[in-house]
């Protein structure tokens, strides 16, 4: 066990840091607007950093999970959240899924366009009646000749209005057994019958949409992993999902904590400040927990070992740790009358983090059943 970077890892960190310093303009650092995040993706793509861990045969650099963690951490440090990259759904969800389940033709058609930021993907899994219970999707696709007809609606679809493609989990066999009745469809967004209606979020932003499909035609060659095999395909996607960009979260949240620390440092002495100092100490301990989990996941990944349940532990930890940081930041900002807008917006935004990607309660179920071996209810 060691946390010392090998000469190669240290060299990679230097290389990444130097590149970030030179290549990323100030207006992209800490930016949240889609266009800015997309521009950052293009810069990463041009440098070969967008999907650094992808195998070389698919145009990646076969970077190790540790190198990926270094890249994420350094990016987070300068305010580039890789966890919010518009390409993430392509690079980290669809791409790895397609490498497992895709045909050679699909890989040739889609993977290079993800790498070059030519296609932006969105994910059509959740529905009004299928949130945590993914197997309950009702959107249907009926085989008709050499294609399928897709109808239904998807909910909480991030960046649906910006995406050119959507990977859609749809029911293709109304009478088939659970887990053998779904298919994963690759659907171009720019065609008749698709209507993405942005939903206004509590922050006032429109980050996600409800997407309606009305008799949309999808060719059979756009089914990923075969008709009625969608559950297995979706499980590959979900398995790839949870730890993505973890180190960038650490870098980003550590920076946010420093921002709170600066407010506290400038505040008047007194009992309230002492209270904040103590909480600053405990939240710092929490944020370093994210870093350590990222190291552990990266080490397991690099060694090719399973990480049973650790991604659920990780999701629970980073989401709650971040909320604790922002809780503190908002209280300090309100009391000191400084930086209120920043912290209030962040406080609202981070509410979503214990909901998306599997709610905190679902993560606890996974930990208690898969890791602790407690009986299913």
């Amino acid at each position, binding site marked *: 066990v060691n946390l010392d970077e090998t000469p190669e890892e240290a060299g990679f960190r230097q290389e990444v840091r130097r590149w970030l310093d030179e290549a990323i303009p100030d207006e992209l650092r800490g930016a949240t607007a889609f266009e800015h995040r997309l521009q950052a993706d293009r810069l990463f793509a041009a440098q070969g950093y967008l999907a650094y861990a992808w195998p070389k045969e698919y145009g990646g650099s076969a970077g190790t999970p540790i190198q990926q963690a270094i890249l994420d951490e350094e990016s987070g440090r300068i305010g580039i959240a890789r966890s919010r990259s518009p390409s993430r759904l392509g690079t980290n969800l669809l791409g790895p899924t397609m490498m497992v389940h895709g045909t050679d033709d699909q890989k040739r058609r889609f993977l290079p366009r993800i790498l070059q930021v030519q296609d932006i993907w969105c994910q059509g899994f959740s529905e009004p009646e299928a949130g945590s219970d993914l197997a309950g999707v009702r959107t249907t696709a009926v085989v008709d000749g050499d294609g399928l007809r897709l109808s239904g609606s998807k909910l909480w679809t991030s960046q649906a209005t910006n995406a050119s493609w959507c990977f859609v989990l749809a029911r293709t066999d109304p009478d088939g057994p659970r887990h053998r009745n779904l298919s994963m469809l690759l659907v171009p967004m720019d065609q008749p019958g698709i209507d993405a209606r942005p939903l206004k979020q509590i922050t006032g932003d429109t980050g996600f949409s409800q997407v309606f499909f009305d008799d949309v035609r999808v060719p059979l060659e756009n089914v990923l992993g075969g008709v009625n095999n969608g559950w297995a395909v979706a499980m590959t996607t979900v398995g790839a999902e949870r730890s993505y960009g973890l180190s960038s979260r650490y870098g980003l949240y550590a920076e946010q904590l420093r921002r709170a620390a600066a407010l506290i440092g400038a505040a008047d002495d007194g009992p309230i400040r002492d209270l904040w100092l103590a909480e600053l100490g405990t939240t710092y301990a929490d944020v370093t927990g994210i870093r350590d989990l990222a190291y*552990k996941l990266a080490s397991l990944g690099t060694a090719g070992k399973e990480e049973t349940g650790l991604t659920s532990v990780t999701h629970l930890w980073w989401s709650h740790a971040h909320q604790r940081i922002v809780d503190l930041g908002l209280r300090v900002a309100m009391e000191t009358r400084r930086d209120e807008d920043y912290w209030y917006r962040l406080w609202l935004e981070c509410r979503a983090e214990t909901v998306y990607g599997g709610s905190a309660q679902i993560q606890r179920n996974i930990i208690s059943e898969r890791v602790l071996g407690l009986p299913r209810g």
Partner: protein
Amino acid sequence: MDFRFDEGEQAVIAGAAGSLGHHLPIDRFRSSGTTEGAWAAIAADGWLDAAIPSEDGGLELPEVMQVAIAREAGRQLCVEEWATNASILPALMAAIPDDATRREWLSRRRSHRGALLQDGRSMVIEVADATVPAAPMAFGMMPGDDVYRLVRSGDATVLVRLEDARISLTPTSDLAIGVGRVEVDGGRSVEAPCRVGAAELERISRHAALIQSAGLIGLGEEAERRTVEYVKARKQFGVPIGQFQALKHILADVHVANEVAWNSVLHAALKGDQEPTAFGASRIQAVEAALGASRAMLQLHGGFGFTWEADVHYFLKTAACAAARFGSLDRHAIELGRALAIAS
């Protein structure tokens, strides 16, 4: 970078787990007999000497292996005495300049468990101005132990060892887990010069606190393991209570806290020299995790957990008292916060 134990390291840890589990079963709290023989057996296996340089007959293992062994001791609820005997005493004895004397002291420690007679709640081990025969709260002390003191003698510091003294601990029979107010009486006194300055004492205290934190991880993980077994076996409404989500989620949180805390202790052991904030962070996580795990253990054992007969109270008491040693959580949190506020 590889944040996992390799096969060789795992073999060492498994060896420690086997030895400590065999010689220090938690049942020992119930029998009034001494664990002196057990202590010598553990020492004979070398586990008490992980921190000691090879030239003095120790294993000279890196700090990260020392915490891994302390975690195994913690699973047996051997937390305070481990921090004293595997960390504090070897470190103080390392400062005895004469080779023969130092080795003699280290050697006696292998057959006679020792405890430090001073208030263990301060963050840094203190040097007393005079030999007071009592301490308001000592940690890991049992009748029969050698009693150690660190005393100022002119400009120098001496380590004093009291052998065969009568030790009375309050509370004793009610709550005894080796923590409490201590008075000593009689015994034979031996002393040796001990060259430790303020900076060295701070370093020794931090190391001991890290070792104790590792013990608390073991305590928390054992509490988790036992509670999981209990809720799988205990039935209500015709089903194992571990099937109920309200209980599952409590245990999931315990698991998460233990995982994070252990990583934090490992990080501090590996990187503490370069990152001054790592120690405070590990202290906070370890203490919180152990307290959380032992509280959950009692809660999920229901009424049984509140009986003397169940082992639950040993976990709870060990964790609660440990939280007060080497400075309270509040003190660590505020010091860490202050360092961060100044740095930003």
